[in-house]
């Protein structure tokens, strides 16, 4: 295996709606910031990979126009995944294993403000049995939340505690949209919107972008004083139909975490792609974290959720904390598909 590290991470100042800039205008400064952090010129990047979703932007081939933010002449080596950019990072990690290039730039972007995100996500469901019923994303999540509460005996107060901790952590994150001090009592006074979930259990609609730069072995050491080494990375997927899964657990997360070696040593911090409060509890169980790990120190997706970049941001946030000396070992998790169908786990370590 070739050692690969995260050497730079930049993200946009996320907002609920960024109506003035197109996706290229949103991405360009973030790409420039990441390159500057790494001290690299565009031409030095060996491979580029992006994650985005045309349905979010309502524009076919928006991932191709997004390349205008990168500069693609003379021709570059480039690829794209139509899902969260955490999987673009996975592809870049695989690509770096070939050994012929030593840097990769990964980006994800999304503007959820342009359409109805909750309905857009319906279109990822199977087209015969589920999608024609138009279950929206929050209703699907609420089914999972109910299954989780029933199976574990936990309550809506446990969900509220996740929100309280997330908002408090987000207070120090300049990119957070939802942050601040609150209490479980205050949150529980709100009506449930789709029981057992309240608006506070759901992520904010967010427009934003993020960029991660990866480098191999010596190159990484030359770029960064303290690279965040990817010591393990794995992703696993479950059946698409939620009717054949145990929604109270996340077996694919547990499997990916096992293969990435998440529990092989002490975990200082974990960034989880938990869009809903109950998802954090399910993923936490699946990762096998004990109480000593700091969970979502950035505030997580409940603080800002630029869909298609949110998972990549988990890896970036975890890596930048490692690089800044805020921990020695971190676990980053990303998720895709309805009700945590597809999960990726990366283990990041300092030296």
């Amino acid at each position, binding site marked *: 295996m070739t050692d690969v590290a995260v050497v730079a991470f930049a993200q946009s100042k996320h907002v609920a709606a960024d109506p003035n800039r*197109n996706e290229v205008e949103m991405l360009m400064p973030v790409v420039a910031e990441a390159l500057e952090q790494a001290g690299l010129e565009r031409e030095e990047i060996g491979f580029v990979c992006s994650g985005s979703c045309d349905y979010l932007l309502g524009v076919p081939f928006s991932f191709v126009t997004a390349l*205008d*933010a990168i500069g693609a002449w003379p021709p570059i080596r480039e690829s794209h995944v139509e899902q969260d950019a955490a999987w673009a990072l996975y592809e870049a990690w695989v690509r770096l294993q070939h050994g012929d290039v030593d840097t990769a730039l990964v980006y994800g972007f999304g503007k959820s403000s*342009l359409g109805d995100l909750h309905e857009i996500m319906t279109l990822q469901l199977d*087209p015969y049995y589920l999608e024609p019923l138009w279950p929206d994303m929050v209703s699907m999540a609420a089914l999972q939340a109910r299954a989780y509460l029933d199976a574990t005996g936990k309550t809506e107060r446990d969900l509220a505690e996740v929100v309280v901790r997330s908002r408090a952590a987000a207070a120090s994150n300049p990119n957070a949209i939802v942050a601040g001090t609150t209490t479980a009592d205050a949150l529980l006074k709100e009506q449930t919107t789709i029981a057992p979930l309240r608006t506070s259990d759901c992520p904010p609609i967010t427009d934003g972008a993020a960029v991660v730069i990866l480098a191999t072995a010596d190159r990484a050491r030359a770029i960064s004083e303290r690279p965040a080494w990817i010591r393990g990375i794995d992703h696993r997927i479950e059946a698409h139909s939620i009717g054949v899964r145990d929604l109270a657990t996340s077996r694919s997360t547990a499997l990916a975490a096992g293969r990435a070696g998440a529990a092989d040593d002490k975990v200082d911090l974990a960034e989880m792609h938990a869009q809903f409060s109950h998802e954090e509890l399910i993923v936490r169980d699946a990762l096998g974290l004990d109480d000593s790990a700091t969970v979502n120190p950035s505030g997580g997706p409940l603080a800002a959720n630029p869909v298609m970049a949110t998972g990549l941001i988990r890896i970036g946030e975890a890596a930048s904390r490692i690089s800044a000396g805020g921990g020695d070992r971190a676990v980053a998790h990303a998720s895709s598909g309805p009700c945590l169908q597809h999960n990726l786990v990366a283990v990041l370590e300092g030296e």
Partner: protein
Amino acid sequence: MSGRAIEDLNEDGPVTKMHAPIRLEYRIGAGTAQSRFLRGVAEGKLLGQKCPVCSKVYMPPRGSCPIHGVPTEEEVELPDRGTVTTFCVVNIPFSDLAPEVPYVCAQVLLDGADTALFGLIAGMPAREVRMGLRVRAEWAPREEWTYNLGNIKWWEPTGEPDADYDAYKDYI
């Protein structure tokens, strides 16, 4: 339910079609660069943007140079005349909004631009339209102008000699 055994349902043959109507609505902004362009068009101006690295002028601008991945902030006003780089003659009416056939769609490279605009060619028989033809914009009456490139009804020949192939060969 009257009820039929599953094996009887198979007698109807396979289901080969189902309808699942999908409709989504979006509110899309033009972006900073294109908004400036459209505001210009509403005043009868064609505003391109220049790359600070390679000096290419993008028309219409999208806010970046796709070659260099940098913002194109310098604005350049271009004349409403240029050269047909390529074209096609449309002989089949496919929309109620389309002009009477035959009509000609073309790429028009404005003088000073490095990307071509899409437009209709009129004021001459379709069979006489050619690459290198020099054209100028025929604008709709001023009171009809809006934030839309439709303010230019079509492009008409200027009567100038055709442009040299070398002048536009890199833009085809």
